[in-house]
């Protein structure tokens, strides 16, 4: 599968590494070249310096032939917009955006054309679950 990841932060870099190990064809984009240091030396994917809400940058990343697009920068608004561009302009079949804000994540799930992952809700759920475990 050809996967484009936007944002080479903790999540992006880790995800890139995992998908690369699983033999997927990964391209990772970040606007800061230092971020690519988070990738392990054995990473075989493509790195691309640029702004992820720029259609030209996305085109250069090969988005026209991508099977999936994952927006994982640390900005919710950037992730939402990049993901919407991927879905609506380039018709990428699978588009996922990481949104920290639960309300935004919810709203986008309702009306949106993209799938969202909200680490805040997931962490809170997990933490409450662990708390309850301790009570038993």
């Amino acid at each position, binding site marked *: 599968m050809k996967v484009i990841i936007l944002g080479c932060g903790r999540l992006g870099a880790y995800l890139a590494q995992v998908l690369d190990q699983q033999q997927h064809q990964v391209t990772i984009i970040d606007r800061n070249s230092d971020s690519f240091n988070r990738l392990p030396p054995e990473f075989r994917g493509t790195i691309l310096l640029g702004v992820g*809400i720029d259609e*030209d940058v996305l085109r250069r990343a090969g988005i026209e032939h991508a099977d999936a697009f994952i927006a994982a920068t640390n*900005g919710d*608004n950037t992730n*939402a*917009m990049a993901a*919407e561009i991927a879905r*609506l302009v380039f018709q990428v079949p699978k588009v996922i955006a990481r949104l920290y804000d639960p309300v*935004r994540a919810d*709203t986008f799930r309702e009306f949106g054309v993209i799938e969202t992952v909200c680490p805040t809700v997931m962490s809170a759920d997990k933490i409450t679950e662990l708390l309850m475990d301790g009570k038993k």
Partner: protein
Amino acid sequence: MYIVIVGGGKVGYYLAKQLLAEGHEVLIIEKDRKKEEALIAELGEISLRGDGTETWVMQKAGLSRAEIVIAVTGDDEDNLMICQMAKNKFAIKRTIARINNPKNEHIFRLLGIDTTVSTTDLILAQIEREIPAHSLVHLMTLREAGAAIVEARVPDDSPAVGMELRELNLPEDFVMPLIIRNGKGIIPNAGTVLNSGDEVVAVTTLENENRLVQVLNGNR
């Protein structure tokens, strides 16, 4: 009419001022403390400090009561988020977004944002209107001496074609030392006749530099 503006930079400020003068109820959401203080000092208590892309800030601004939401921050992704949340979460009928990168207009339209204003496109259009088709090329500007060496092309439909230099209504402090015709330099005199396509080089004061274009284009 209650109008919420997100972004209290120059665009937001002047927009609010104008809308207030027209008698509307206006609220500006601005996240920068200094900018917000300046807004209050200038326009009164019409602002709310906070990130206008955050839902709780939108709620505090009473967004659901607004008839129009205008997003004019310097970031397209923020403006898009504001309009989308306003439309889908607060059921705002009319959303207007400023677009900084003209390429983004397309995606805003696909996502149903009612009106977009591309500042870059507007400025570009204005510049193109201001610069005549046969524009003046600055070869050298001597700002301290208040003079410039400029070059302009004689258009085919120029009223100056076929005229002698002395017949052109040129100001006194305006010298035309060189004409380039078919790639060759000619040192003209008062009796030299202009042809269409000639490149005219002139030494002029800064105030008079546009006279060359006016003379060659017939005061358009």
